[in-house]
């Protein structure tokens, strides 16, 4: 119904009426459960909703239209790399041979997928400059955990049990310190420089015999390439620690910088950022991890192995005792990895380098448009990588309009907002990442919108502070939601069971 305005939907429970469901499978025999002891059986059936097919499909069609999505518009969410998701990827992942394969299927029945995974590892190793890659982690944070557990295993294997700290800049993504803690380390926060950038010297100062690893994002969360990264890595290694690179910003440096070549020992890659596997409303993703020589023995199991005869197989449980073990039930988020593989093949070597060129060009162009307009502060004047920070600090002092307001007003103008207040180190910051797949017309339209909002802030600030006006809902009572959590609906109608007929 959204053609005449988006419609909020009742919940599926509110739409449920007994008897409205559709029989999709034949009824089970009456005595199907007779052999199961009564005390193991459910006494009250689950209160699932009963909807006709039209009501059900319309619910999800109409709900979907309440979402902003890359398929419908520009989504410059910094650090998240909301790039285009080519449709061939979705097709590929649904091929029955890929989608229908059981994860414990005998190796000889899984040669297609195993080969794809093995080749994908080679691609990612080449791109990252790493010695080997595991595709197992389910997301970036899961990759971080894999990486830090390998760091831990490495030190322990060398009898180096005293390293208890992981150094993390205060501008790091929250997953970095959280991962260090999950792996049993103390996360030591290194304050950033006054200009917000990572403080390499502070890192060097904090390094010592207790340091297990540093975790650093490069390009940084400000969208800046850390030109002294080589010195830092040297210092890390000199201290007997390892260097972890958070590869979330890999989209800036494909073909330009290979972290493994530069000396990083371990890094994760977010396929759902750099390699166009979609974000899915919050997930799924995949977080492959590349490691240098020293960490290869500790890679999670099972690895995908290529036999001398050219066939492929999964490593068997216990086959490589140095492994940190399994991080998840099965080998990986294969459906996501098929998409990443398709993306890589579609682009090829030159195409991947172009991705970064175009992403960096687009970000610098947008940054230039905003800088030139004077509408916002651009805290870091130098060329940015694939994203950059703008700030509404001056605007706020002049008009009272905050970055949050600007973000909400952008929604009215048909754009998703950038990431706001991240990294935490920049006052009223917005991290803007256009990605390589947007046309100059879109970039210009977005810049124009931001500039117009600044003008509105001066002229009619309530237009901005009360935004959004055109979205399905206005601003929400988030405090109320947390104070009295309402986390589930209750079924409205009684459930008959077994089936009424």
């Amino acid at each position, binding site marked *: 119904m959204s053609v005449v305005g988006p419609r909020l939907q009742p*919940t*599926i429970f509110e739409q449920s009426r007994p008897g409205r469901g559709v029989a999709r499978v034949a009824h089970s025999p009456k005595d199907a459960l007779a052999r*199961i002891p009564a005390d193991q059986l459910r006494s009250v059936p*689950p209160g699932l909703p009963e909807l006709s097919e039209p009501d059900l499909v319309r619910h999800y069609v109409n709900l979907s239209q309440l979402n902003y999505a890359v398929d419908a518009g520009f989504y410059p969410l910094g650090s998240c790399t909301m790039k285009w998701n080519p449709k061939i990827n979705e097709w590929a992942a649904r091929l029955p041979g890929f989608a229908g394969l059981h994860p414990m299927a005998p190796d000889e029945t899984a*040669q297609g997928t195993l080969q794809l995974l093995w080749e994908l590892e080679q*691609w990612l190793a080449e791109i990252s400059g790493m010695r080997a890659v595991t595709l197992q982690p389910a997301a970036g944070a899961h990759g971080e955990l894999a990486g830090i557990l390998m760091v831990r295993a490495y030190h322990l294997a060398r009898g180096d049990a005293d390293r208890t700290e992981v150094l993390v800049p205060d501008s790091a993504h929250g997953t970095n310190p959280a991962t260090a803690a999950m792996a049993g380390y103390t996360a030591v926060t290194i304050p950033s420089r006054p200009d917000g950038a990572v403080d390499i010297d502070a890192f060097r100062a904090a390094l010592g015999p207790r340091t297990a690893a540093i975790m650093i994002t490069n390009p940084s969360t400000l969208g800046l390439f850390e030109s002294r990264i080589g010195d830092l890595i040297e210092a890390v290694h000199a201290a007997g620690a390892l260097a972890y690179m958070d590869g979330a910003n890999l989209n800036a440096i494909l073909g330009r910088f290979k972290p493994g070549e530069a000396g990083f020992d371990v890094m994760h890659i977010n396929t759902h950022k750099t390699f166009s596997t979609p974000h899915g409303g919050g997930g799924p993703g995949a977080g492959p991890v590349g490691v240098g020589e020293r960490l290869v023995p500790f890679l999670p199991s099972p690895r995908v192995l290529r036999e001398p005869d050219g066939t492929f197989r999964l490593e068997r449980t216990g086959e490589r005792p140095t492994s940190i073990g399994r991080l998840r039930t099965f080998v990986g988020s294969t459906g996501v990895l098929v998409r990443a593989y398709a993306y890589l*093949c579609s682009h090829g070597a030159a195409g991947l380098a172009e991705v970064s060129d175009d992403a960096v060009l687009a970000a610098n162009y947008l940054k230039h448009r905003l800088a030139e307009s004077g509408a916002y502060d651009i805290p870091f004047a130098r060329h940015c990588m694939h994203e950059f920070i703008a700030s509404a600090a001056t605007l706020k002092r002049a008009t009272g309009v905050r970055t949050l307001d600007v973000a909400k007003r952008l929604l009215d103008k048909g754009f998703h907002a950038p990431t706001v207040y991240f990294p935490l180190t920049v006052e009223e910051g917005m991290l803007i990442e256009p990605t390589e797949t947007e046309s100059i017309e879109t970039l210009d339209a977005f810049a124009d919108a931001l500039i117009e909002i600044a003008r509105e802030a001066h002229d009619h600030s309530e237009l901005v502070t009360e935004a959004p006006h055109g979205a399905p809902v*206005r601003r929400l009572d988030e405090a109320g*939601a947390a104070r009295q959590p309402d*986390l589930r609906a209750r079924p409205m109608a009684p459930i008959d069971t077994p089936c009424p007929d």
Partner: protein
Amino acid sequence: MLSAIGVASVDELFADIPTGLRASRLNLPDAEPELSLATRLEAMAGRNRTDLASFLGAGVYRHYSPALVDQLLLRGEWYTAYTPYQPEVSQGTLQSIYEYQSLMAELTGLDVVSASHYDGGAATAEAALMACRATRRERILVSHAVHPQYREVLRTYFAGLQLDEIPLVAQGPAAGTTDLVALERLLAEADHPVAGVVIAQPDFFGLLEPMAEAGRLAHAAGALLVAVVEPVSLAVLAPPGAYGADIAAGEGQPLGIPPQYGGPYLGLIACTTALIRQIPGRLVGQTRDLDGRRAFVMTLQAREQHIRREKAASNICTNQALLALAASIWLAALGPHGLRDVAATGAARATELEGALAAVGAPRVHAGAYLNEFAVRVPNARAVHRRLLDRGVLAGLALADALPDEPALSDALLVCATELTTPEQITRFATELASAIGGAA
């Protein structure tokens, strides 16, 4: 654009990368046009053998997915959105997650459901860690009848904590289920107070566990009961909330998600309201907008890494929201009667399968009650399994592969049936098995 920016070439924009650290050439193939890529991928996918009559379950179950499910999932408005950071333009995702939480609450009988974890194994590990946080204890007991790969994941996550196994009953009617006497003994070790007891229902062998009794023992010792559940079974089996589990964890894949060689799947975690501040992962709550309209928003974010950083309940950020949506649509498309039919038909087919296999000399290994999966004894199980593969039958899982350390199971196959298992497939399996046993003997 270059001239607007004021540079002569794109290279200038990369000047910050020190010369010495510039990348070597990308040694990768050329770009492949869509047609040739599609052709090649189709051939690769075709090399997987998904045409077998399969009796393999072992934690991953194929179920019928009504056509509407994937058609809705292909809408870009769902899969090309991200985490609903701007709730005003993300009510679709937010309401769908709220509904997912509600559906899982119905299935599990537990009121708090997180908005998804990576998969069953990872969710189980997170649930165990959660028990440690909630009880401020550091020891977890896990039944040996929990899926061996879940136990491996637990070991990885518990690298610094204490993880002990509860042995199984070896003989008699309860063989293959968790040994409650041993559990009681382990719980009683005063020096090592137990945070949580992890037991799977059904267990890895398909058997039904004495969950209520295990819960009473755990609670008596101040520990929590973590039930590892299979969600489709909850259509007919007593839910964790009913037998006193504090936390339920499990794999959501059976809710209509394709097997796709291991993922993306859907990690489930649900808990009692008492544990709400300890649950890891995203939560969506109902609220109002400025005009009083009902709306949904991410809430209780103070548990999460982006607020609490190293003190967060977990490092999870990207989750499995699209799979939670898939499971929700699947559940809503089947409805309560359909889900019951799926679960009960699987049980009925499994009964047939049991009979057919027993008739050709492959009797059950265990005596206890099961739902739709069970182990059978087959001489030369591995060789027979391989021989059946050549005849187009995937004869479940050779337990010798999954549990190599257990000689008692070296001649056993773990087999399952679902509503997709046809009587013809069962007959074919039995026939081929009969001839393979003969041949291998």
